[in-house]
C-alpha cells in the first residue's frame, strides 16, 4: 500500500521539475524558515549537530558537494584526481574565492582546516583523517592528500558539514573555542552571517562577492526559532514561514500542512545522511543477549504500521544492516516481516521467563514517543514484559553511554558508504563506554570485524562488494540491533520557493540556488 502523502510527493516532484524548467530564476526576496532546536553556535567544524549544519551550511563550504545519487560535484575544489593505487588525491581549487571578510581562499586554508582544525576539534573528520598520511599544499590552489592505504569512501568525506573549510588567517594560533570570530562566523558560502537574536531569529544576508556568477538569488534567509511544534505549524500555515525543514514539525502535522494550497513537499535532500533508525539491543546481558530473543523482537514489531501511521508512509522498512542508500546492499536477504506467531515460537524455544525488559525511547519528539509506545504494545502482545523508561536527552545519552538499557531507539547517519556509517555499529573495537554512537549494543564477532576491516581498504569496489555480502548475511542472522526504518524526512515549502533541494544534503546548502517566484 502506498500512503497518500507518498503519492503526493512523487506527483509534486514531477510538477516541480516541469515548472523549474519553465521559468528563469528571479533575483531578490527573503525566505523565512525554521531552525529547531536553536543551534549552540554556528562555527561548522567546531560544532556538527544538525541545527548548526542546516544554518551554517549556507555560510561555510567544503571542497565537494554530492548529487542526490551521491556523485561528487565541485564546490571549492574545481576538479580532482585520484591516483591508480587509490592512495593519492589531488584537489584543484577555485581561484576566485574570497572569505566573507575579503581575504582570498587558498590551499593553506585547506591544509589548516584539515590538518590542524579538524584534527583537534572534529571527531567525524578525525575518523577519516586516521587514514591520511599527509596533506600538502603544492601551490596556492592545489592540495594533495596522501593516504596510508586505499580507503574506499574517501571521496565521500568532503561535504561541507563534515569537512568544513575554516579561515586560517582568523583561527591559526588561537584558542579555537574561544576565538572572537565564533560569534560572527566567516565562511566562503553564498550567505553571510548578519544577526542572531537568541531565542528568536538568526539572519543571513546575501554574499554579493560569491564566486558563482549570479548566485545566490535571494537577498537573505531568516531562520526563526520557535520552540513549540504546534506554533511552528501555525507559523507555516499563516504564511510567516516559507520553508519547514524536515523534523521541524511533528509527523502528524505533515499530511494536513501538505494538503494546503501552494505547498510542495519533497523527500529528497537526505541521501548523504540516510538516517537509519535502529533499536539498540543489549547483547551483553538479560534476554536481549539471546539471538532468538532479538529475532523475536524483529518479528514482533509491526514496522509497516509504524511507517504508515507514524511516518506518513514515507521511508522504507529495511532489510538488514545495510540501508537502501548504502552502497553494496544485498537485497536477496529474507525480510523479517511482521509475524507475532514466529516471535512467540522463538520466545518459547529460548524459554523466556517473562523477565522485565526496559525500552528507552528517543527523546526527540512525539513521533518517537508514539513509536516506542507502539513497539512496547507489539512486544507485549507476543508476551514480552516491557516497561518504558522515559528520559530526556541527557538521560538517554547517559544510559546508552553506560550501557544501562535493554532496548533503545536511535537513528544513525549512513554517510553513503558502509565504512563511514555502518561498520562503526558492529566493529568490536568500537565498543567503548561513554558514547551513544559506537558499538553500543556490545556485539562481538571476529569474522565480522575481519570482513569490515578488509572491505574498508580493499580496492577496487568489486572486491569490497563480496566482503560486504558475507557481512550482511552474518548480521542478518545475528540481529545485533533491531532495524526499524530508513527514515523518510519530508521538507515542506511554498511552491513559489524554487530550486530548493538539489543536492544530497538538501537544505543544508539549499538556499544557494533557491529563488522566489513571486
Amino acid at each position, binding site marked *: 500500500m502506498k500512503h497518500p502523502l507518498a503519492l503526493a510527493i512523487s506527483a509534486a516532484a514531477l510538477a516541480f521539475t516541469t515548472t523549474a524548467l519553465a521559468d528563469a530564476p528571479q533575483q531578490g526576496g527573503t525566505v523565512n524558515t525554521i531552525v529547531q532546536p536553536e543551534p549552540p553556535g554556528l562555527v561548522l567544524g567546531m560544532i556538527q549537530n544538525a541545527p548548526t549544519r542546516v544554518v551554517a551550511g549556507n555560510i561555510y563550504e567544503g571542497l565537494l558537494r554530492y548529487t542526490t545519487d551521491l556523485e561528487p560535484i565541485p564546490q571549492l575544489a574545481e576538479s580532482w584526481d585520484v591516483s591508480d593505487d587509490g592512495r593519492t588525491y589531488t584537489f584543484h581549487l577555485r581561484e576566485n574565492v574570497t572569505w566573507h571578510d575579503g581575504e582570498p581562499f587558498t590551499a593553506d586554508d585547506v591544509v589548516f582546516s584539515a590538518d590542524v582544525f579538524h584534527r583537534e576539534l572534529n571527531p567525524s573528520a578525525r575518523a577519516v583523517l586516521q587514514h591520511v598520511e599527509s596533506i600538502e599544499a603544492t601551490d596556492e590552489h592545489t592540495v594533495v592528500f596522501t593516504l596510508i592505504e586505499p580507503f574506499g569512501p574517501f571521496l565521500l568525506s568532503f561535504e561541507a558539514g563534515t569537512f568544513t573549510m575554516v579561515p586560517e588567517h582568523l583561527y591559526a594560533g588561537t584558542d579555537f573555542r574561544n576565538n572572537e570570530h565564533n560569534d560572527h562566523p566567516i565562511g566562503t558560502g553564498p550567505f553571510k552571517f548578519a544577526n542572531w537574536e537568541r531565542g528568536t531569529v538568526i539572519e543571513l544576508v546575501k554574499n554579493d562577492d560569491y564566486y558563482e556568477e549570479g548566485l545566490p538569488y535571494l537577498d537573505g534567509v531568516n531562520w526563526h526559532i520557535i520552540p513549540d511544534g504546534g506554533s511552528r505549524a501555525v507559523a507555516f500555515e499563516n504564511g510567516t514561514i516559507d520553508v519547514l525543514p524536515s523534523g521541524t514539525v511533528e509527523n502528524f*502535522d505533515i499530511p494536513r500542512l501538505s494538503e494546503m494550497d501552494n505547498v510542495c513537499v519533497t523527500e529528497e535532500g537526505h541521501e548523504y545522511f540516510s538516517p537509519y533508525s535502529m533499536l539498540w539491543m543489549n547483547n551483553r546481558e538479560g534476554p536481549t543477549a539471546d539471538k532468538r530473543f532479538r529475532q523475536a523482537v524483529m518479528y514482533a514489531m509491526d514496522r509497516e504500521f509504524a511507517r504508515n501511521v507514524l511516518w506518513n508512509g514515507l521511508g522504507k522498512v529495511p532489510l538488514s544492516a545495510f540501508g537502501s542508500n548504502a552502497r553494496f546492499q544485498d537485497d536477496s536477504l529474507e525480510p523479517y516481516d511482521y509475524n507475532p506467531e514466529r516471535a512467540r515460537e522463538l520466545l518459547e524455544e529460548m524459554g523466556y521467563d517473562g523477565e522485565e525488559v526496559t525500552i528507552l*525511547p528517543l527523546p526527540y519528539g512525539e513521533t518517537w514517543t508514539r513509536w516506542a509506545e507502539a513497539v512496547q504494545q507489539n512486544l507485549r502482545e507476543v508476551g514480552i514484559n516491557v*516497561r518504558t523508561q522515559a528520559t*530526556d536527552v541527557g538521560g538517554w545519552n547517559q544510559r546508552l553511554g553506560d550501557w544501562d538499557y535493554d532496548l533503545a531507539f536511535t537513528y544513525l547517519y549512513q554517510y553513503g558508504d558502509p565504512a563511514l556509517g555502518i561498520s562503526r555499529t558492529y566493529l568490536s573495537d568500537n565498543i567503548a563506554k561513554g558514547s551513544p554512537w559506537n558499538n553500543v549494543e556490545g556485539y562481538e564477532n571476529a569474522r565480522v570485524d575481519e570482513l569490515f576491516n578488509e572491505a574498508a581498504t580493499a580496492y577496487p569496489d568489486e572486491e569490497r562488494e563480496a566482503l560486504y555480502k558475507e557481512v550482511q548475511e552474518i548480521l542478518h542472522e545475528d540481529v545485533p540491533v533491531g532495524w526499524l526504518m530508513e527514515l523518510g524526512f519530508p521538507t515542506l515549502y511554498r511552491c513559489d520557493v524554487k530550486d530548493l533541494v538539489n543536492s544530497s544534503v538538501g537544505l543544508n546548502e539549499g538556499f544557494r540556488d533557491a529563488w522566489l517566484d513571486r
Partner: protein
Amino acid sequence: MSFFARFAQNRGALVGLIILLMIIAMAILAPLLFPESPWRMVQRPFLPPLSQDGFPLGTDTMGRNVAAGLMHGAWVSLLIGLVSTSVALLIGVPLGAIAGYYGGLIDDILMRFTEFFQTIPNFALAIVLVAIMQPSVTSIVLAIALVSWPPVARLVRAEFMSLRNREYVEAARLVGQTNTTIILRQILPNTLSPIIVLASLMVATAILLESSLSFLGLGDPNVMSWGYMIGAARTVIRQAWWLSFFPGVAILLTVLALNLVGEGLDDALNPKLSRER
C-alpha cells in the same frame, strides 16, 4: 445539623460531589468496561467520536480507544493527585506541627527551610525534580509533593501556634501529658478541618501539575493519564480536537469538582465561614 446536611447546604458542593463520585466510578469501572489495555491499537487512527460503535470518543493517533484511555486515566490521575497530596501532607504536617508547637529556634529553622523552598518557583522546581529523577509515576508524585508541602507546613504551623496556647492544651500540659501526646491527641485533631479542606484543593492542583508536566513531555510513559493524553494529542490538536478536548474536560471537571467539594467541606467543617456566604 449533621455534617452532611451542612455540606449539602452548599449546592455547588453537592454537584461537585456527584461529579467526583462519577469520576471515581469511572476509575473503578474502567477494568470492567474496557478490560483490554488502553494502549492497544485497536482501530484505524483518528476515528472521530461517535463514528463507530464501541468507540464513542473516537481513536487517537495510533488507533487506540480514547474512551478506554479516559476511563483508565481517571484512575491514574486521581491516584497521582491523592498520593502526591498524601506525601505532601506527610512532609508538611509534621514540620508545621513541630515548628508551630515548639516555636523559638526550631520554628525559625524550619520556617527558613520552608521559605527557602518557596523561593524557587514551584513549577520550575517540579520540572527540574522530574527531569533529574527521570519521569515515572514515583518521580512525578515525589516532585509534586516536594513543591506542594510548604503551604501545608505553613497552615499547620499557624494552626498549632494559635492552638498551642489554648486553655485545653495548657490543661493537658498541666495534667502531665507528654508533648507527643499533646501534639497528636489535643492539637492535631483540631487542625484537621482546615487540613482536609486544603488537601482537597491540593489534589486538584496536583492533577493540574501532573498534566502540565505531561504536557512538557515529563509524564510517565507506562501509565495512561489524562495529562499524558493531552500531551500526546497536543501535536495533533488541529486535525483531532477530540483527543485533547475530552481529557481536558475531564481534568477541568475533576479539578472543578474537587474545588467545589473543598468549598463544601470548608462550609461544613468551619461553620463560622458558612454563615458569611
